[in-house]
C-alpha cells in the first residue's frame, strides 16, 4: 500500500503560514522574558481558558492522535474508556482536591511540592526520574515524526529531525513556557479544525452513525463478537472475552479509571505545569475542568473515524487499505494518515497534515518546557548552585540556566531520537519502565496531601518500592504470544496476560498498592518531622478550607465540575 502523499503548492503554503505564526508568537513574547519565573513559570499569569486548552493540547500529541484512531479500528468505542472513565474523573479530582495544594504551596514543580511536603531525597528521586523520562519521550516523539514525514511526504529523516527540533527550540527558547502554552492553544485549534473535514467526510461516506452500525455488524460478528461490540462501551465488559480489549469492567474501572489515569493526570508535571502557570488559585483549579470539556468530545474527532475505517477496510469498492509491516500485519497507527489521504483534496489536505505536525510539536515543546523547569529548579538550584540571596543576580543567573537547559534538552532529545532509530526496542522498553513511576508517585502525593502523618522516609521508600514492584511484575509476566523481552518476561514468566493492556493495568495496580501500603506502614513507624505550621497549605487537614464566596456561583470550580460530570455521564449512557 502506497503511503506517499502528493502535496501541492497550496498545502505547503498552509504549512509555511502556520510556522510563521508559531515562530511569531515566540518572537512577540521575547520581550517579556526578563527573569527565570517569566521564562519557566509563565510568570503565573495565564488566563484559565488558555491554560485549560494548553492542558489538553499537551496531552493531544501526535502519538496519541494516531494511536487513538488506530485503537478505534482495533477496539471500537471501547477506546473511549481512555477519555471518559480514564480521564474525566481524574481531571475532576485534580481540579477540586489537588490543584489548590500544588498552586497554593508556591511550589514551582511537582518535585518541588515533594520537597516542601516531604524532604530533599524524595524530590531528588522524582526530579531525576522525571527529567530522564521527559527527554526520552521527547526524543521518541521526534523519531516518530521523522519516520512519518519520511514515509508520507518523502522528506529526509535527518532534515525532518533537525528542522522540527529547530522550530520547537526557537519558540521555546524565545518565549519559554508562555510560548509553549500559547502555541499549544494555537495547535489545539488547528488540530480540531484540520481533522474535522476528514471526520465529517468519513462519516458521510459510511452513512452516518446508523450506517456505521449496520456496516460493522457482519464484520464484527465474523470475528466472534456481538454485532454492536464496536459501537458500545460498557455493554460487553461483563467478561474480558466478550470484548476486543480483553479486559472486564472491574479491570477497566480500577486499572484505567483509577490507577493509570490518576497517576497520569494528577501527578505528571508535564500536565500539571499548565495549571500551575494559571493567573490565580481559582484559575488553576478551573484549568483541568476547562480542559475536560474538549477532552470528552475528542473521541468523536479521532476515534469514531478509526471505527469507520474498519468498515472501509472491508468494502473493496472503497479502495481503502492500511500499509503492512515486515510480518504482514497492518500498521494501525497509520489509520488516520490513510484516512486523510483517502478523503482530503489539496488545500484542506495541507491543513490536515499541518494539524498532525502541530500535534507533534505540541508534545515535544511540552516535554522541553517541563524538563527545563525541573532541571533548573529541582536539580541545578538544589544540588549545583543554590540561591545566593542576591535577588537580581539570582534571577539573571537562573534565566540563563533555564535558557541553556532548553537548548540542552532539545539536543539530548535529538540524541534520543537517533538512539530510537537504531535501537527502537530499547526505547520502547525504557518508556514502559518510566511509565511505571506514575502509579507510585500518585500513591505518595495522595497520602502526602490528605494524611498529615505521612513522612519523608516513608514517601521515599514508597516511591522506590512501587517502582521496584512494577519492574518485577513486568519482568515476571508477559502478554500472550509475546516474542520479545521488551514486552516483559525478562526474569522468567510466571503469568501470561491475554493482552498487553491487561498487563499494563496490573503492573500499575501492583505498584500503586505496594507504594500505598509501604508509605502507610513506614509513616507509622517513623517520626513526623514537619510541624503543623510547615504543613499549612500542603496538607488538607492543615489548610484553611477554600472560600470561593466572592466568586459568582456559575464561575466556581464546583459548578464547572458538575457540568463536566453531567456531560460525561450523559455520553457514557448514550454509548453504553
Amino acid at each position, binding site marked *: 500500500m502506497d503511503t506517499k502523499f502528493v502535496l501541492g503548492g*497550496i498545502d505547503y503554503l*498552509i504549512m509555511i503560514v502556520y510556522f510563521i505564526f508559531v515562530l511569531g508568537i515566540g518572537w512577540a513574547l521575547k520581550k517579556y522574558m526578563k527573569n527565570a519565573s517569566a521564562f519557566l513559570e509563565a510568570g503565573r499569569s495565564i488566563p484559565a481558558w488558555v491554560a485549560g486548552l494548553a492542558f489538553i493540547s499537551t496531552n493531544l500529541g501526535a502519538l496519541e492522535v494516531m494511536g487513538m484512531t488506530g485503537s478505534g479500528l482495533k477496539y471500537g468505542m471501547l477506546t473511549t474508556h481512555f477519555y471518559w472513565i480514564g480521564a474525566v474523573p481524574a481531571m475532576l479530582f485534580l481540579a477540586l482536591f489537588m490543584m489548590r495544594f500544588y498552586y497554593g504551596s508556591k511550589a514551582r514543580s511537582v518535585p518541588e511540592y515533594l520537597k516542601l511536603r516531604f524532604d530533599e531525597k524524595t524530590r531528588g528521586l522524582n526530579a531525576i526520574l522525571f527529567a530522564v523520562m521527559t527527554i526520552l519521550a521527547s526524543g521518541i516523539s521526534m523519531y516518530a515524526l521523522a519516520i512519518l514525514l519520511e514515509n508520507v511526504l518523502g522528506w529526509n529523516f535527518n532534515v525532518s529531525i533537525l528542522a522540527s527540533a529547530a522550530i520547537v527550540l526557537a519558540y521555546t527558547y524565545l518565549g519559554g513556557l508562555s510560548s509553549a502554552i500559547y502555541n499549544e492553544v494555537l495547535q489545539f*485549534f488547528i488540530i480540531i479544525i484540520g481533522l474535522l473535514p476528514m471526520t465529517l467526510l468519513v462519516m458521510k461516506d459510511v452513512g452516518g452513525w446508523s450506517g456505521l452500525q449496520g456496516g460493522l455488524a457482519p464484520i464484527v460478528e465474523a470475528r466472534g463478537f456481538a454485532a454492536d461490540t464496536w459501537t458500545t462501551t460498557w455493554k460487553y465488559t461483563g467478561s474480558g472475552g466478550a470484548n476486543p480489549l480483553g479486559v472486564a469492567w472491574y479491570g477497566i474501572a480500577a486499572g484505567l479509571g483509577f490507577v493509570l489515569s490518576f497517576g497520569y493526570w494528577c501527578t505528571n508535571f508535564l500536565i500539571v505545569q499548565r495549571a500551575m502557570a494559571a493567573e490565580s488559585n481559582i484559575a488553576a483549579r478551573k484549568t483541568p475542568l476547562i480542559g475536560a470539556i474538549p477532552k470528552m468530545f475528542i473521541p468523536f474527532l479521532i476515534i469514531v473515524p478509526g471505527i469507520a475505517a474498519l468498515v472501509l477496510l472491508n468494502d473493496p469498492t472503497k479502495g481503502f487499505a492500511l500499509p503492512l509491516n515486515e510480518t504482514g500485519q497492518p500498521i494501525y497507527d497509520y489509520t488516520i494518515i490513510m484516512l486523510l489521504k483517502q*478523503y482530503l483534496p489539496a488545500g484542506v489536505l495541507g491543513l490536515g497534515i499541518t494539524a498532525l505536525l502541530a500535534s507533534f510539536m505540541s508534545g515535544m515543546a511540552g516535554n522541553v518546557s517541563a524538563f527545563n523547569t525541573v532541571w533548573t529548579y529541582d536539580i541545578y538550584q538544589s544540588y549545583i548552585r543554590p540561591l545566593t540571596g542576591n535577588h537580581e543576580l539570582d534571577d539573571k543567573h537562573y534565566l540563563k540556566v533555564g535558557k541553556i537547559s532548553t537548548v540542552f534538552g532539545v539536543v539530548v532529545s535529538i540524541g534520543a531520537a537517533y538512539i530510537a532509530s537504531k535501537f527502537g526496542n530499547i526505547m520502547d522498553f525504557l518508556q514502559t519502565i518510566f511509565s511505571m513511576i506514575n502509579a507510585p508517585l500518585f500513591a505518595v502525593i495522595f497520602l502526602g496531601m490528605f494524611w498529615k502523618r505521612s513522612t519523608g522516609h516513608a514517601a521515599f521508600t514508597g516511591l522506590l518500592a512501587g517502582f521496584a514492584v512494577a519492574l518485577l511484575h513486568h519482568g515476571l509476566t508477559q502478554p500472550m504470544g509475546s516474542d520479545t523481552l521488551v514486552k516483559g518476561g525478562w526474569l522468567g514468566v510466571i503469568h501470561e496476560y491475554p493482552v498487553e493492556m491487561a498487563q499494563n493495568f496490573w503492573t500499575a495496580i501492583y505498584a500503586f498498592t505496594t507504594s500505598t501500603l509501604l508509605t502507610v506502614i513506614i509513616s507509622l513507624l517513623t517520626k513526623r518531622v514537619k510541624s503543623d505550621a510547615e504543613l499549612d497549605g500542603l496538607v488538607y487537614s492543615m489548610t484553611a478550607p477554600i472560600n470561593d464566596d466572592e466568586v459568582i456561583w456559575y464561575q466556581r470550580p464546583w459548578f464547572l465540575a458538575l457540568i463536566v460530570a453531567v456531560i460525561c455521564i450523559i455520553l457514557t449512557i448514550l454509548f453504553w
Partner: protein
Amino acid sequence: MIDIRFPIGLMFSVFGIIITVYGLTTIGNDAMYLRSLNINVNLISGICMLIFGLVMLFFSDPVKKWLKNRKA
C-alpha cells in the same frame, strides 16, 4: 502579555482567505473533489475558518482597543 485570540484569529483568517480562494478557483474541478464525495470541501472549510478567525479577532484585546479608540 499578548492576547492569544489575536494571533489565532489572524492565522485562521489568513487560512480562511487562502482556502476559500483556492476553493473558488477549483469550482467545477470534479476530478479533484471525487475523493471528498463531490463536495468542494475547500470552499466550505475556507468560509468556516474565515468566520472563526474573524470572530476571534473581533473579541481580541488589540481589536477591541482599536474599535474603542476609533469611537472616541
